[in-house]
């Protein structure tokens, strides 16, 4: 991309270049380059070669799984029904995708329009996280073609998984609608965009409800297995709250992590508004994450106290539990406090990565490592690990494909003739209390 930037090329960010005809879909798909130019830059990018190697090994393995069954590629067994696909792909990806509803709530419900530069990134992060959690699920299910059964064929409404299924399905729909605004701008379909803007509040509120319930429901799934999950990770009364509350720092920190990666590797795609506001917003997100983390720490301790599990802390499992809490909750709290106090954005970014690691470790511990603690330890099959890496790579590729094109990191410039002031006002939203134009650095209201 750098070579083209030097030559004066700018990625497509409007319906038409100044004084030129409207761009076709084909032009937009290749960011205003010719297909040949686009291909040449893709080939020059070493990261694409890494992806190609992963796919070359992983995709045949995925096909192999569907031809020869789960037994051929995983260590999933009668004792360990859920392996890496679910513990990583579903249980760890979903809390990191809480970002969509968090930022949606901040902006749309509480009117914090100063968060708008990262709102769309957070929404896309949510959508893709959920979508790929479902992809992981499809690979793991014995009969994935029957996924719609709980919606249409046979109902088990008293099951927690029934809730998870329904809520993930409806929430995916909600998130597709929320992210579709960017797509409609890109496609130049203002009528559709207007329709979505009209139901934004409804969508956001349903997003909060569905997220509350199914983030919690994923935790509640483990209350079915009281004797199997180690007591330190199990809490009959609070399991769902532990999962819900840890998803809050998880989602917010994922936005910090992704925005950092984007800033470092895709600066050409970010507009002035995004770049100028990112440091300030990173600190603001870290404040939210800190509040989530401290709450999480307290309710985890209450969980231990409630079931009187202190004795377990002195065992080997206790050390592992303390490691998880120390590296994923306590240390981030200290580092965030320093980062926020001294405006050290770099430290905050590192801490966000640590927090994400902590949340992932918690989910892996709950679903895989501390599960069946009385039996034996399951080590995932190498093919299972490879397939997981492949699916995660597919997630990254999809993520990048969308960020390159849709107005997520930048604002779509609408033509004056086509864009009445009202529509523009909706996207930019200068408020009376914050009359500064988009792109200017907002100051925190408090």
């Amino acid at each position: 991309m750098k070579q083209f930037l030097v030559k004066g090329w700018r990625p497509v960010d409007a319906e038409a270049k100044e004084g030129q005809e409207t761009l076709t879909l084909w032009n937009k798909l290749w960011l205003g380059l010719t297909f040949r130019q686009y291909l040449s830059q893709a080939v020059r990018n070493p990261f694409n070669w890494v992806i190609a190697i992963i796919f070359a090994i992983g995709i045949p393995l995925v096909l192999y799984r569907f031809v020869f069954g789960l037994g051929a590629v995983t260590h999933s067994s009668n004792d360990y029904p859920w392996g890496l696909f679910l513990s990583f792909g579903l249980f760890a990806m979903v809390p990191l995708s809480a970002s969509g509803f968090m930022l949606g709530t901040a902006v749309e419900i509480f009117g914090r329009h100063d968060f708008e530069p990262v709102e769309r990134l957070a929404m896309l992060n949510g959508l893709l996280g959920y979508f790929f959690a479902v992809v992981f699920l499809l690979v793991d299910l014995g009969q994935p073609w029957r996924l719609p059964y709980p919606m249409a064929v046979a109902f088990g409404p008293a099951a927690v998984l029934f809730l998870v299924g329904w809520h993930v399905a409806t929430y995916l729909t909600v998130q597709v609608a929320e992210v579709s605004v960017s797509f409609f701008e890109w496609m130049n379909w203002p009528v559709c965009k207007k329709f979505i803007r009209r139901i934004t509040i409804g969508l956001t509120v349903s997003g909060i409800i569905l997220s509350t319930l199914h983030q919690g429901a994923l935790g509640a799934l483990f209350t079915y297995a009281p004797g199997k999950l180690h007591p330190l990770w199990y809490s009959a009364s609070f399991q769902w709250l532990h999962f819900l509350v840890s998803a809050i720092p998880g989602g917010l920190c994922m936005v910090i992590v992704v925005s950092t990666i984007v800033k470092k590797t895709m600066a050409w795609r970010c507009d002035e508004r995004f770049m100028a506001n990112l440091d300030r917003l990173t600190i603001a997100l870290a404040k939210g994450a800190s509040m989530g983390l401290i709450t999480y720490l307290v309710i985890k301790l209450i969980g231990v106290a409630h079931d009187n599990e202190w004795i377990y802390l002195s065992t080997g499992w206790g050390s592992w539990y303390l490691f998880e809490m120390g590296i994923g909750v306590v240390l981030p709290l200290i580092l965030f406090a320093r980062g926020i106090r001294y405006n050290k954005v770099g430290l905050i970014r590192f801490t966000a990565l640590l927090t994400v690691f902590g949340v992932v470790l918690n989910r892996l511990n709950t679903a895989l490592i501390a599960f069946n603690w009385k039996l034996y330890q399951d080590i995932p099959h190498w093919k299972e690990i490879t397939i997981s890496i492949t699916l995660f790579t597919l997630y990254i590729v999809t993520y990048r494909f969308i960020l390159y094109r849709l107005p997520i990191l930048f604002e779509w410039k609408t033509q004056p003739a086509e864009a009445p002031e009202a529509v523009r006002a909706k996207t930019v939203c200068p408020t009376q209390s914050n009359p500064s134009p988009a792109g200017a650095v907002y100051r925190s209201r408090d």
Partner: protein
Amino acid sequence: MSKISRRRFLAASVAGGAAITLAPTKKALAATFEGYSEGMGVLVDLTRCVGCRSCEAACNKEQKLPTPDLPFDDPAVFDQTFHGGTQKRRTTEKAYTVVNRYEPKDGSQPVYRKIQCNHCNEPACLTSCFVNAYTKTREGAVVYNSKVCVGCRNCMVACPFNVPAYSYSSAFNPMIKKCIFCHETRLKQGLPPACVAGCPQEALTFGHRNSLIKIARERMRHQPGRYIDHIYGEKEVGGTAWIYLSAVPFEEVGFDTTLQKEPILSNVKDFLSTVPMVLAIWPALFSGFHLLAKHKENHAGDDHQNIDEEAHK
């Protein structure tokens, strides 16, 4: 700021609300279900079992399972261990029941224990299934419908006895494989399951669960000191159709004695009961927050002074 009119706001709220109500209502089940009164069961007397594995052979034949690697009269299976010697044999897709040998701590005679589905009164597998593939029949069996099973394997996670097995080797029609109390072929006709019929030692007694508990108590009373004072399965996880008597502590012969007395479902009820509350309260709560935040914005620039002045007008 996007100006959303009151009407639009209400319309959006209704649309959002309608989307929520389209989801079926989730309700927690009523008080603990203690099993059908006419439900059948089996009393397993561990003191009578000699480890002949006739029950395994009978089950294999009745359920048309594949021939095992070692024949049913080969005692070598008792020495098999798995996962670094930590695990004994368990139920699999090829064996719905297995007998394991245990050496009691006091050095007395080895004890043999039969494992199969215990057919809980309120089965965790059933309550965790999101397509209702499981049924607790009036006869007491927990049966499974592979036609609707999606293969999520939540039932295997939920089962406190680690009984259900999955045919992982099948790519196109994998399913749960477990003991079904010979429901279709025998139990419905009032016949005992094949394993009970095949037991030469009368270690297995078939009958109404309620009367089996009485029989177990009788045996304990008639032969004081022979059994430890516990009927395993009478109370565990809400009660099971298969109940056990033993001369040695149950934890020494592979039973999980830390299980709760309430059905597994009772752990989940707390969460299930919050669901309708969240569905009911959140819409107004967060729409209310939105209105509050909007109001502040509309009066942005006003300070308390102005509002006070307006109030005095």
